[in-house]
């Protein structure tokens, strides 16, 4: 590895952006660097490293590093440790920054001033960017910028990073600091000594007192507090009313996913049906036509049809996030989470897992305590991710009648809500058992900054939903398409022998594998076609639906989603369908999730434990469901 050398001597000066979480640090990074940025991971840890560069008005090129958010250099989480070590020049393979820019949320200066006071001890040139200055002004917070700069002894620049306001001033200050650095380097003058050390309790209290003193001198609080946020919080954070509202919001969201998406889903289905009919009419019978209709159109079509539901679900999640409701939901859930042995901060990773367990597991980095973090990682895949939606929707549409309950609710939506609830309850139960059996001890107290409510930005919502939809379609058009082609191949070759009486798929490689594994899954009511679908479903859950589409289409069925629902409705018993749903609540059917757990825990032990416990739970849940359903006469 190359030696760590101060870059100023060898190239562009290195600037690091430091600040509390959610202070607009990344917005400032984007405003400064534009598209000139590179995202990777820090060596040996899975903390994101964002580096970019920009040119100052004087024409100097500056390398800039966007460090993970922290409240102090007394690091407690892996993210905070990276920030501390990079700032102090201790991070292996990372050059010490020449210049520090501390980004502050101007609406909440008290927290960041403690960090600024710590950063001053590092001995590097320091600038303070007072970000979100417009919001502070709007709320009536008066900040005497000159007084603040004089008291802190560092230049202070007001900025509004999202609108690039104040960046010209900031760049001027950076230019001045870079000139000073270059002069110092040319004259061989060394920079200020680093006097920072892990502070004692008394030193921490002294820093707090100093921050409070500066706040009193330089900041005048608003004469009228933000009554809008206070009034809303009085209702939304109420232990009873707040929880009821949260449940209502979630319930409404799942109802909407089912009912609002239907017309668009019907349109997509019709489109794929028409395409298949056109191919059948335009091409002569043969293996190429079979590949296109049974493999590609049936497989990919059965996944793409769920796009409207994914779009609706994400629109709700992003709207709630932008509105500022998500941290409140975490606050409301803290008591329930704590009862299950999970930290309050686990709510956000678990909520992210509704979209996909992978970002959810990565989001557990915000949890300081290793045991709390591991407990959250281990249960995150039990939350109902979007890849389960196609599976649940297919089975519900095939087996649950589309009729209203109490004249208001859709029965199918109620069942979907029940499946989500089952995922949440099982996650809480597993966490409870793990904390009692494996990681005994108390859960650390939960502290979280509650942002002010704001009207969601339409452009941001549209962009975020589009990003998710695009990722879903790309997956359908690449990985799922490829897997479907392979499934079609395995389901079609070798062909049926002369005089065969069974459908051709029975004689294929997939048929042989399915028949061979079937005794293992027979006790839980699965047939061999389901076994064939479960194997590629290990790569990604939703592939199972497309695989069922292909297997049944090759086996002589029709190649559209409506027909697949009809086929399943006729060839599966209700007990089998319920058993399949129970399997999908627990089964570790996602190789990428296991790979991320391996990376995040830096150990093979945890993904193996996760795979074994989830597979065992899936088998036991399916076994119990199938036999209870069979005893009720549904087999």
């Amino acid at each position, binding site marked *: 590895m190359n030696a760590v050398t101060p870059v100023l001597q060898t190239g562009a000066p290195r600037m690091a952006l430091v600040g509390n979480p959610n202070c607009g640090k990344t917005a400032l990074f984007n405003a400064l660097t534009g598209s000139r940025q590179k995202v*990777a*991971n*820090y*060596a040996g840890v899975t903390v994101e490293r964002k580096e970019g560069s920009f040119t100052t008005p004087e024409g100097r090129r500056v390398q800039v590093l966007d460090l993970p958010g922290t409240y102090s250099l007394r690091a407690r989480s892996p993210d905070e440790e990276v920030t501390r070590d990079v700032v102090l020049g201790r991070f292996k*393979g990372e050059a010490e920054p020449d210049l520090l820019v501390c980004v502050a949320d101007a609406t909440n200066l008290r927290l960041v001033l403690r960090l600024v006071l710590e950063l001053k001890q590092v001995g590097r040139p320091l600038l303070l960017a007072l970000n979100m200055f417009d919001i502070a002004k709007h709320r009536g917070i008066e900040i005497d910028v000159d007084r603040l700069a004089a008291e802190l002894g560092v230049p202070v620049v007001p900025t509004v990073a999202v609108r690039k306001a104040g960046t010209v001033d900031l760049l001027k200050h950076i230019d001045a600091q870079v000139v000073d650095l270059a002069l110092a380097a040319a004259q061989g003058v060394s920079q200020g000594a680093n006097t920072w050390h892990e502070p004692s309790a008394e030193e921490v209290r002294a820093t707090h007192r100093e921050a409070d003193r500066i706040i009193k001198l330089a900041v005048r609080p608003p004469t009228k507090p933000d009554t809008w946020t206070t009034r809303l919080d009085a209702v939304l954070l109420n232990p009873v009313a707040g929880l009821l509202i949260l449940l209502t919001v979630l319930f409404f969201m799942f109802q909407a996913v089912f009912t609002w998406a239907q017309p668009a889903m019907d349109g997509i289905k019709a489109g794929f049906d028409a395409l298949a009919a056109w191919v059948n009419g335009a091409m002569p019978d043969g293996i190429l036509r079979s*590949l296109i209709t049974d493999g590609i159109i049936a497989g990919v079509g059965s996944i793409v049809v769920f796009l409207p539901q994914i779009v609706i679900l994400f629109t709700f999640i992003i709207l709630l996030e932008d509105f500022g409701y998500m941290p409140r939901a975490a606050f409301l859930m803290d008591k329930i989470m704590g009862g299950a042995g999970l930290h309050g901060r686990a709510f956000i990773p678990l909520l992210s897992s509704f979209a996909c367990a992978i970002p959810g597991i990565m989001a557990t980095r915000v949890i300081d305590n290793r045991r709390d973090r591991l407990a959250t990682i281990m249960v995150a895949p039990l939350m109902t991710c979007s890849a389960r939606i196609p599976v649940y929707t297919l089975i519900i549409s095939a087996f649950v009648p589309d009729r209203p309950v109490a004249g208001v609710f859709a029965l199918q939506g109620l069942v979907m809500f029940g499946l989500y609830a089952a995922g949440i309850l099982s996650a809480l139960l597993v966490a409870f058992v793990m904390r009692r059996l494996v990681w005994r001890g108390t859960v650390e107290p939960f502290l979280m900054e509650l942002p002010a409510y704001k009207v969601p930005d339409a452009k941001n919502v549209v962009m975020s939903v589009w990003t998710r939809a695009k990722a879903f379609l790309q997956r359908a058009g*690449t990985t799922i398409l490829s*897997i479907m082609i392979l499934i079609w191949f395995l389901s079609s070759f070798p062909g049926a022998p002369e005089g065969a009486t069974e459908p051709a798929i029975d004689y294929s490689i997939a048929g042989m594998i399915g028949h061979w594994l079937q005794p293992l899954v027979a006790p839980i009511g699965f047939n061999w076609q389901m076994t064939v679908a479960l194997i590629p479903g290990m790569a990604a859950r939703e592939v199972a639906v497309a695989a069922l589409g292909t297997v049944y289409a090759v086996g002589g069925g029709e190649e559209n989603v409506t027909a697949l629902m009809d086929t399943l409705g006729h060839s599966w018993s209700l007990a089998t369908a319920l058993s399949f749903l129970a399997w999908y609540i627990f089964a570790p059917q996602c190789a990428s999730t296991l790979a991320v757990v391996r990376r995040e825990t830096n150990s093979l032990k945890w993904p193996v434990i996760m795979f074994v416990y989830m597979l065992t739970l899936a088998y036991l849940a399916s076994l119990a469901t199938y036999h209870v359903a069979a005893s009720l006469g549904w087999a």
Partner: protein
Amino acid sequence: MIQQAIVGVIVVAALAWVLRPTLRRALRRRQVAAGKAPGPCGSDSCNCGS
């Protein structure tokens, strides 16, 4: 015969796509071992400039 050839090419391409990450990793490991490519950041063969 032409249909079979087209189907063969499509199936092989699909297999290559599915195995792409594994093939890439294997190729990268071989290049790093032969000294033809830099290792991951922080490793002894890293040359990312830091």
